[in-house]
């Protein structure tokens, strides 16, 4: 993983060296997580390094920070970061209410139950409070993931369905659609939205031809020279 631009030197020296195993760095990395949430600048390596320190020193774990990292990873979908974080946790930590909420929301998103995700967020005050206080761009990041997934699947979609999946309606939805490149209300039927046609949402049969790499021929070429 390359270094994110937003990563301070101090953090870089921790996570890219064996200093990442030093439990004294836990507090610095915890503060850095809060910064990432507030500024929406996610640093996967630093988050995983902190979870590793918790894994090695379970008595030091701060489950609120764990939940914060999971929220950041959720915002990084479609990357599999959330799963990578889960692998490093202990099973008993998953019982923490906030952590459990995030795991559930992750499942909904992985199963592309987008409408259910928004309903869940609406109903669970604890999560909404946490994200709106600590991670203001959470909803926007998730919406971006949903939009790209829809963009891979649909060429046209009804506004009704779009409202449900993006949790936007009326003018908000109109503005949002306008802000996205290539998206627009269908000219003939204003209950539909057209999505840009990309390599992802087409159905063109391609014949895969074999490629021959130069290296495959080196032996034959070498021999032909000897033969002369």
């Amino acid at each position: 993983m390359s270094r994110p631009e937003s990563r301070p030197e101090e953090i870089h020296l921790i996570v890219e060296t064996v200093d990442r195993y030093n439990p004294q760095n836990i507090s610095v990395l915890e503060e850095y997580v809060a910064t990432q949430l507030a500024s929406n600048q996610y640093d996967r390596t630093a988050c995983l390094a902190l979870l590793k320190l918790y894994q090695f020193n379970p008595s030091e774990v701060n489950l609120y920070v764990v939940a914060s990292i999971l929220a950041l990873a959720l915002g990084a979908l479609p990357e599999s970061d959330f799963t990578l974080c889960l692998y490093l946790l202990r099973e008993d930590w998953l019982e923490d209410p906030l952590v459990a909420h995030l795991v559930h929301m992750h499942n909904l998103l992985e199963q592309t139950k987008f409408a259910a995700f928004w309903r869940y967020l609406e109903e669970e005050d604890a999560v909404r409070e946490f994200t709106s206080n600590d991670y203001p761009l959470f909803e926007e990041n998730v919406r971006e993931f949903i939009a790209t997934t829809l963009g891979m699947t649909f060429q046209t979609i009804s506004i009704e369905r779009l409202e449900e999946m993006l949790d936007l309606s009326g003018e908000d939805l109109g503005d949002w659609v306008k802000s996205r490149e290539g998206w627009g209300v269908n000219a003939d039927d204003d209950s539909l939205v057209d999505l840009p046609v990309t390599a992802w949402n087409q159905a063109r049969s391609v014949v895969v031809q074999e490629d021959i790499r130069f290296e495959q021929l080196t032996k034959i070429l070498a021999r032909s020279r000897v033969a002369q």
Partner: protein
Amino acid sequence: MADIPDRYFDEDEVHADQVELPTVFASDQFTAVVEGYSAAQPAFSSQVKLPEPVAKFLTQFHTHLVDRNTWELHAFYENSFNKLTEKFYSKVAWPDADSISHLVNDDAAFLILYKELYYRHLYSKLQPTLEDRIGSYSNYCDLFNFILNTSEEPCELELPSQWLWDIIDEFVYQFQSFAQYRIKIKNKSEAEIELLKERPDVWNVHNVLNVLYSLIQKSQINEQLVAFRNGGDIAAAGGELGSKPLYRMLGYFSLVGLLRVHCLLGDYALALSTMENVEPGQRGLFSRITACHVTTYYYIGFAYMMMRRYSDAVKMFANILNFVSRTKHYHSRSYQYDMLVRKSDQMYALLSMCLVLSPQKIDENINNVLKDKYGEHYLKMQKGEEGLSSFEELFSYACPKFISPSPPDLENPNPIVHDAVKHQARIFLNEVKSQLLVPTLRSYLKLYSNLPVEKLAGFLDSEPDDVRTQLLVFKHKSRQIVWNSGPLSSGTLVPTSDLQFYLSQDVIYIAENKVGRRVADWFIRNMNKFEDIITTMDKKAVPAASS
């Protein structure tokens, strides 16, 4: 620099010289001695003097070590030791170091190496006690101190590469074994618990990591690999220590050891970044030790699989399984043959899971073996809910033995125990669950070029809304990061499915990729084969003509 290959091999070609041949020394002088010794000899007690062949073996072994006769050492290590083990120590431990010390002039370095063999043998044939585990750990500390802290002077030891690999491999194995042993608090005696409390340093994860990181750093192996990749001077990059085979090999093997430790702890991102300077598919310098080569691919492939990079995992497994199937006959008499067979079997299991999760074409030979071994599983895994048990079965058979890095609470008779294997399995299976219906969906979509959602819902006995969700799942899951070039962890998000579709309102439009005939590959392979035959014939013809 003689050991640096000056060319890259065609992936399809495996040469005998790429493989460390464990059986070439089968007829060394020592074999005769061993075989001449009557098996009818009564069993000796450990207190009684050593069997003569063993005593002779040890003195000669010591001489070769002192003379730095790597070639002979290799033979002694790979063959004689195993033959004597079969003969005398198949059910008991080798004599302890104290009782053989007089045979080797109390040579401290030799005794450390002997103890390494002694414990390794004990772990493989007997049940190690806590004292054995501590003893072995202390011996590894002595060994690595001897190599790493020889007051600036490089250590002059020279050992066969195979042995060096086995040392690192065993070191990580015993660390893993200890973590599994430690977690079972309930069946420990009080004395054992006390001993565990007294020695928190033993097989401590920090100490183990420290050894591996130190070997990597001292050998400057990463710098060497970068130089190797860029065609630079690797001896210069290695410096005084790293240019010596002992350090270079230990450094490289430690990278692989670290890859494994990170996987055992569930840290797949770190596992891959450990290998950032290693290029997959690069043959030569380090692929000669087959066990190391196979281990590397197994763990990289596994990490990819857990990161949901199934397409990359498939490439890793298919590549190494191809290598193994073409070189297996070299190893049929090696002490590592069983390990090779088992690891291959596990990789076929992993490969079949990856292919269900991300269908793609693979090498035909590998595909045939796969169908042979796991054909039934493969079909069942595509059948939604009912296939889940097959995923579970294959995963638990083929996964690494995950461990928890922190000790359980020894003060508490019933501590909360984190079951690392279950935890990893649960997360993986949860991921599988979220895409259980994709294979079924796929089988229907393949039959049409366009299909209304309603109609598909009818086939699936489901609601149109649910079908739309499943179509989104299909798209979401077939988007994977795929490696292109550069570090293993890098890659770009691409669609991996050979089935393309999109929805326009409520109609699905579908097209399938077709694979053109692959002829060039066949021709290249046969041209090479033909040339090889001619070369062999030429070689044979010359002496015949002159005699």
